């Protein structure tokens, strides 16, 4: 497996998270064990309510687990968050409408206190990375949905994190735009060598992007299967979606999802 030397970037053991809903407790996560290594591209896939977003939010310290242990780069998620060790891409672009594209990308750098010249240089780099050079002075509402989400990826990259957490970033986009952005994302990942955790409910997207796929199931939110994608080349093109290896992995993911899914609720 590529790059699994050294300690894991993210390690969860016996991780559980229970909400106290009005009538009964809800097990958003139940006994989750997972290790994510440097350079991995991990997809969390499963139906709604399976805890994939919750798991990502626990890694980001946006939620606290009720039991179990989790480390991010060897420290608690809170320490990692305070050291700004990860970049987070949300379901919606969450751009600030009063800021231009460039100033949106510079926002985390402003908060970190990075000097202005460097802020501008880094913003220009990251906008180039997502193919948006020339849009610096536009306002978010002047951009298409796909472009807005690329800006939000550039903003997460501007922190220069080793760990990129993405929560269904392309979920609201049309399929053609999504294919295009998936290709850009996989190229970006290969170029920068970052560790990515990617939440999705699209099997094709998960297989196309990932080195490993974590299949989850709801009530309680738990891991059903972890599938290695070593059969696929590390360099991904849209063509590999036609290959038998791709179909085999996709089939295994689908079987896993079927196993965990009951239609009676």
């Amino acid at each position, binding site marked *: 497996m590529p790059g699994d030397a050294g300690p894991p970037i993210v390690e969860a053991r016996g991780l559980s998270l229970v909400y106290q809903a009005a009538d009964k407790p809800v097990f958003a996560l139940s006994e989750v064990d997972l290790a994510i290594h440097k350079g991995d591209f991990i997809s969390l896939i499963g139906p709604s309510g399976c805890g994939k977003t919750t798991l990502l939010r626990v890694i980001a310290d946006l939620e606290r687990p009720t039991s179990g242990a989790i480390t991010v780069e060897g420290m608690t998620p809170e320490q990692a968050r305070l050291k700004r060790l990860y970049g*987070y891409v*949300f*379901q919606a672009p969450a751009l600030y*409408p*009063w800021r231009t594209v460039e100033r949106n990308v510079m*926002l985390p750098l*402003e*908060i970190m206190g990075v000097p202005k010249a460097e802020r501008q240089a880094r913003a220009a780099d990251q906008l180039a990375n997502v193919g948006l050079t020339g849009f610096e002075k536009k306002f978010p509402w002047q951009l298409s949905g796909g472009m807005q989400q690329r800006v939000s990826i550039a903003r997460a990259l501007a*922190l220069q994190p080793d760990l990129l957490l993405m929560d269904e970033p392309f979920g609201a986009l049309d399929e053609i735009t999504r294919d295009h952005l998936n290709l850009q994302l996989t190229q970006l990942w290969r170029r920068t060598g970052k560790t990515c955790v990617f939440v999705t409910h699209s099997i094709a997207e998960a297989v196309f992007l990932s080195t490993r796929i974590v299949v989850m199931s709801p009530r309680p939110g738990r891991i059903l299967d972890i599938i290695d994608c070593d059969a696929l080349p590390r360099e991904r093109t849209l063509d590999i979606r036609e290959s038998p290896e791709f179909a085999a992995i996709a089939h295994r993911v689908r079987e896993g999802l079927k196993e965990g899914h009951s239609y009676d609720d």
Partner: protein
Amino acid sequence: MSGNPYQTSPYRTSLRTAADWGLVTLALLTAAALTQPIGIKDGAILSWTADPIALLFLVGSAFSVVGGRTAPTPAKGAWVELGGAAMAWLLPFHLLNEGVDLSRGWGLWLYLIVATVMLWRVLGVLSAVPGWRRSLLVPGLFGLGLLLGWEVLVRGFQIPSVLLPPPSAIAASLVKHAPVLWDDFRQTVLTSVVRGYVMGCGAGFAMAILADRVPFLARGLLPLGNLASAVPVIGIAPIMVMWFGFDWQSKAAVIVVMTFFPMLVNTLAGLQTSERIQMDLMRSYAAGYGTTLVKLRLPNALPFLFNGLKINSTLALIGAIVAEFFGTPVVGMGFRISTEVARMNLDIVWATIVVAAVTGSVFYGGLALLERATTAWHPSMRRR
């Protein structure tokens, strides 16, 4: 013309278009007007034929209608018809100068009704043309029409100026009493309103930030806000005068009472508008309370802040003027209104009202412009 029946221009004269019936009505009204007198001069009834100038005006208006309807474009025609309408509205001034009593000059009033219908049509045509005509000329002509109508009706029917002076008398009073009005303006607006407004809005804003951090303050203060908004100014103003004396301090106190809660409520509401996802983003950057406030929550709250500021701009002016009814050094707009009404000097009262109305509009308009400049990003402000 064109073969397509749906493409006939509603503007061009042709017997089947609805515009013609409007024209026929105008013609009938004008004919009726010709049979009626235009006023009474030296006790004798004055007919159209007795005053060649009046007849000239009428003929001019009639020609302008013909000219307007046959003009190459509706907009050009509108200009010609505007001239005709203006001519009609100038005739009463000529007659008043001649010492004619217009109050029973039904022929003249019918003529003016015809002219008003013409002006209506002109405004309709002009407001369909985008650009400066629609944004400046139409409201300008509308306002001018209202002023002219006011002037002519008040003078024509000889309404006592104690009840309602004509605009020209108010304008003359504005000029004549300018030094007094300026002193009043300085006392009421530049001293009381500005200080009270800044203190009231500032305190409301600061309290909102505090209540945002200390939740029980918000819970305790918001019901009080409803209570305070129901308190009549007229009730608290005399108390504030007793507490803080005759000068600007008592006026500022009334304004603070009136503006504090609107600002507090609007700021608090504005601070709640940031979305969960935006807050999570700031959290993921390890941004503290202050950073989140400045970089996210206050910009998001701007439309609400301006809402509070705009509401308060009118409240502050009303508060100061009403409070001056209950005691003031012998200067100030409220003082002027209350004393001059008692002395039946209604022209200066009307002049003060004009100053107050213009001040309020400029204050509000300035804030609206500032809002447009700072919240151009907001969906409600974006250009479509």
